[in-house]
Structure formats: structure tokens, C-alpha cells
């Protein structure tokens, strides 16, 4: 059952990252900027908690699965142990990325300027949102790349690890 839960949680996490990159981002081109902002806000609010919950479930069920491999396999002298260590590193990186996106990059996308801004200040605020969008895109790509590497590491575990 733990294997099922970890697989399902990982599927939801990776599937979400793939949908954001391959479905939602291209679809944005067909929507007005204001509606993209609203949809991103609603989506981001739900997705960040879902992503963090899935990463927590992966950690809990992953830990439950490890002893099943047998004693002595979880040391850095075995390929299995090194692969598990790399997976833990990926997990920490993913949590940091999701937290960074959720609580820093995502709020910056919706920065609103006051109504009495000068044209220069308004242009600067708009440029700031543009930078935030590019930063968010870069973070999403890094997140997807780390998730794909982690999937490869996880795929090698039933065969004894790959490092």
C-alpha cells in the first residue's frame, strides 16, 4: 500500500508540473493579461498546497518503504544507499523550489501599483511584473527538470539504484 501511495503522490506532483509547463503556459497566450493573472492566482493558491502535501506524503511513505529493502543497504557504500541519498537531495531541492515559488515568486506576479503612480513608476511596476513572470517560468522549468531527474533515480531503485 505504501508503494501505491508514494507512486500516486509522485504522479500527482509530476503530473501537475507537466500540466503547468505543457498545458497551462501555452494556453495563456490565448487569454487577456488580466484573466491570466486571476486564473494564475486561483490556480497557484490551490496548486502550492497540493504540491507541498504531495511532497510530504512522498517523504512519509518513502521512509516507510525503505526498511523493506533490508538492513545494511542504506549506507553510502551501496548503489542503493547513494541513490536514496540523491533522491533525498532532490526532495529537499523540490520543497525549497515550491516554497520559493509559492511564497516569493507567485505573490510578485500580482504586485499592484497605486492609482496615483507617475508614468515612469507605472512602467517600472510593469517591468517588475515582467521580471517576476520570467523568474517564475525559470523556476517552473528547474522544478520540472529536478522532478524528472528524481523520477529516473526512483525508477532505478527496484533494480538496486543507479549511482
Amino acid at each position: 500500500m505504501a508503494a501505491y501511495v508514494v507512486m500516486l503522490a509522485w504522479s500527482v506532483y509530476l503530473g501537475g508540473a507537466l500540466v503547468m509547463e505543457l498545458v497551462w503556459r501555452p494556453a495563456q497566450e490565448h487569454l487577456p493579461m488580466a484573466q491570466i493573472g486571476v486564473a494564475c492566482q486561483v490556480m497557484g493558491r490551490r496548486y502550492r498546497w497540493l504540491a507541498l502535501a504531495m511532497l510530504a506524503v512522498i517523504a512519509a511513505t518513502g521512509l516507510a518503504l525503505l526498511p523493506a529493502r533490508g538492513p545494511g543497504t542504506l549506507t553510502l557504500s551501496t548503489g542503493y544507499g547513494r541513490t536514496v541519498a540523491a533522491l533525498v537531495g532532490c526532495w529537499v531541492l523540490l520543497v525549497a523550489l515550491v516554497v520559493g515559488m509559492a511564497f516569493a515568486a507567485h505573490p510578485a506576479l500580482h504586485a499592484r501599483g497605486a492609482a496615483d503612480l507617475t508614468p515612469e513608476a507605472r512602467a517600472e511596476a510593469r517591468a517588475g511584473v515582467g521580471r517576476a513572470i520570467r523568474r517564475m517560468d525559470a523556476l517552473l522549468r528547474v522544478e520540472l527538470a529536478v522532478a524528472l531527474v528524481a523520477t529516473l533515480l526512483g525508477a532505478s531503485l527496484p533494480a538496486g539504484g543507479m549511482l
Partner: protein
Amino acid sequence: MRSYWFGVIATYLHLIAMATYVGGSLIMEFVVGHAQKSIPPAQAQVMGEKTADRFLLLAWSALGLLLVSGIMQAYAKSVEPMLMGDGLFDSGYGWSLFLMIALWAVLVVNGSIMTFVLRPRLKGKMGAQVGAAQVQARQDHLMKTVRQMQWITRADLVIALLVPLAGAGLLHGNGLFTTGVLAPLGLG
């Protein structure tokens, strides 16, 4: 066991395809679909069409990749005769494999109905010279199609949750019917 890397790559592709289909379906339903309701109807329709078109492509690619990587995994574990029915029902592993293949076939059938029957119905447009009765009939027809699509999507979600259960049994043991939650059925 055949080549180590062949097996790892097969499992890797299978996991990515499963995540795309299973996780993608759940995210489309509960995150993208939810956000769609927060914008005005005209834009929501555009968003729904564009995201659904792209996800349909992704879902079909995932179903294709599941088939190819599943066959690769069978070769990697030297159980490919089971794919031709040889000894398929003699072990818990075979029963689990059969369950996975059957669920995959249901997903393909459902996907075909969605892609080739229901979605084209939603895209048809009416001419300008139609009466109120025809408009009403068209609206009823559209609503019926949308309800049918919702039922199929829900059925797909349930199946998508069952497929990894069978997969986990195969990846970490001898299948669901021997060591997994369906062991009491005694098909191992």
C-alpha cells in the same frame, strides 16, 4: 532479468507516462478546472478549449507511451510470453498484469469516445437563420454532451487511481493478488 539500463529506462518512461495521465487528469480536474470558474464565461470557454485540446494530446501520448514502456518492462523482466496470454492467469503477477492491460483498454475506449464522438459535437456551430426551438434543442443537446463528458472524465479518474495500484504491486512484488490488497481473492 535482461539489461539493467533497459529495465530502468522502461520503468522511467512508464512512470512519466503514468504521472502525465494520472496526475495530469487530477490537476486538470481540480486545479485548472477550478481556476476556469474564476474568470468570465467567454474567457473561461477559451481557456477550457485550449487547455483541453493540449491535455488531450498529452493524454493520448501518455497512453501510447504506457503501452510501449509496458511492453519494454515485460521484456526487461522476461515475462513477455504473458503478453501473448501464455501463463497469464497462472500467477498473481499475471492477474495484475491482466488487470492493468484491461484498465488501459478502458481508458483508450473512453478517450476515443471523448475525442472522436463527444468533443466534435461541442464544436459544431449553428447558422444565423435558426428558430428558437432549434436553438433550445441545440442547447439541450450540448448540455447532454457535457454531462456525458463529465461522467466519462469521472470514470477515467477512478480508473486512473486504480492503475497505479496494480502497477505498484508489479513493481514491488508479485502483483496485487499475491501480496497486495487483493490477496484475499486468492488468484495468485
